[in-house]
């Protein structure tokens, strides 16, 4: 088994995105270069306000500075405590944890479906692919939220040169409606899918993942879902983060996941 690194890292950068979202950089993290999109870190504090550690998808790496980026939305105790960190203050990173996304073929079209604060691992996935020579035009970035406010970090997404398809439930930005409805329409419209086959990558709230799972089945499109679950340990020892499998039994989100193929989970 690959060693799990428990490492003290320090806040190196901080950028306020809008709507209580923050981009935080931490380093030095020796293993930064080998981190892959879909993996996460489990963050511990010296004087934690909450009891568990908190898991955050890796949203980017700087392999030169050996830094890791995460993007978070301030919601409760854990994210609040992160938001209060000052430059140079330390936290403990346990990671990288979990299985990454499996990259698509270079000629496939990657349909990334992000819901709310589920976008960070997909942003990382897109950047990672483009760095590795994937054509940005073969990436479609679906990004849904309740209103315009929820669609943050637009500039960075646009700069990648991917096809950006936002949707909001109140229509205040992008299409009006659920992002999964947009995905479905996309898949139903002949010609829009580009030259190759499609592969779906999704991360977001439970409802979104369920819908994507159904759509992937309906359109016989392969897909990968990045799950979240409360994680007491984050590295497989507590059996607390399980998700039921279609085949019966359970899988640990932190260990067998957080990325699962569509069609495998009993969502």
């Amino acid at each position: 088994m690959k060693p799990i690194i428990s490492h003290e890292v320090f806040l190196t950068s901080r950028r306020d995105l809008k709507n209580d979202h923050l981009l935080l950089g931490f380093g030095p993290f020796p293993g930064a270069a080998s981190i892959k999109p879909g993996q996460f870190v489990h963050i511990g504090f010296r004087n934690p306000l909450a009891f568990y550690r908190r898991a955050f998808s890796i949203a980017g790496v700087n392999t030169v500075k050996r830094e890791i980026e995460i993007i978070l939305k301030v919601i409760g105790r854990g994210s609040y405590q992160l938001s209060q960190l000052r430059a140079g203050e330390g936290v403990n990173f346990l990671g990288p944890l979990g299985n990454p996304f499996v990259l698509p073929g270079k000629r496939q079209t990657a349909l990334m479906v992000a819901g709310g604060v589920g976008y960070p691992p997909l942003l990382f996935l897109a950047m990672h692919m483009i760095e590795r020579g994937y054509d940005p035009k073969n990436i479609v970035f679906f990004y849904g939220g309740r209103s315009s406010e929820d669609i943050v970090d637009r500039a960075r997404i646009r700069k990648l040169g991917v096809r950006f398809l936002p949707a909001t439930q109140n229509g205040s930005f992008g299409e009006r409606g659920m992002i999964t409805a947009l995905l479905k329409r996309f898949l139903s419209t002949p010609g829009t899918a580009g030259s190759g086959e499609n592969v779906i990558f999704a991360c977001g709230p439970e409802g979104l993942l369920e819908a994507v799972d159904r759509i992937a089945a309906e359109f016989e499109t392969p897909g990968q879902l990045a799950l979240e679950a409360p994680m007491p340990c984050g590295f497989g020892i507590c059996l607390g983060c399980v998700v039921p499998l279609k085949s019966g039994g359970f899988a640990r989100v932190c260990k067998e996941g957080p990325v699962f193929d569509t069609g495998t989970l009993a969502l």
Partner: protein
Amino acid sequence: MNSPGMTSARTKPAPLNKKDTRETPDLSVEIAGYRFKNPIWTASGTCGYGEELDTVFDLNRLGAIVTKSITRQPRPGHPPPRCSEESGGMLNAIGLANVGVDNYIAEKLSFLDGYRIGVIVNVAGFSFQEYIEVCSMLADCPRADMIELNISCPNISSGGIEFGDNAKEVERVVSAVKKVFPRPIIPKLSPNVTDIAEIARGAEAGGADAISLINTLIGMTVNIETRRPTLSNNRGGLSGPAIKPIALSMVNRVYESVRVPVIGIGGAMNCRDVIEFMLCGASAVQLGTALFLQPDLPVIVERELKKYLKKQKLDTVTELIGKLEKY
């Protein structure tokens, strides 16, 4: 006794004439005729079967590992949510998810073969028969140094009352498994009882070689938006620092009530807590929920325990055991 890393003392304790070559301060403790290199163990259900933890630190640093409860048959466990985060702790209702004793012996126990640590196999059951079957299967596995008996399980045949709730039942189940397993048996007591000392005396009467405590306290919390319990099993077991004072009190009661060694469990989060347990009478201390927050804690506790002993000018950690000075 051929388990690596331990000296059998079935016949008599290994001669300690190599004392001078031992490290000072000496962290080793003797329990049920075995010598463990230190009193820092990991608790059942919080360290899996050891594989994952070994990626964080070298398991050889432990005194012993107590593996996840196993039952006769594999069990998938309860559906999610299985855990809920609380003030100073967590609730869990994993539902004794485990690979079953056959797979355990075939796949999991062998992983620990190369390690010079005590291997304590935690066994759970829903009937006398199940305990006896599982324990007798383990009798032939030399790597299973000892069995820890999880008696916080409902006894299906007696209407679901937990084995651990009744001293007579505890005595019966302990003496039954003693007959089929030739090495030490450590019953693990439930704290959800009126008189823990009575239960402990029952365990001792049944032939327990040591007693470990405490398992989790029954608890429940509610999501006030959905009005549902936070666990699919409705109730779960409370663990973590929240329960430490309860655990210490019970460890001390049991220490004063029986003659066999006591293993302390419950909310130990750091070296200070481990020392508290030992002063209250524990010969070894299991780290549980703490491993989720700080998986390399055993290594840190080992280092700090040595420092504390040096500062206190004590040569051996055994000088702490039960040395509480009560008012």
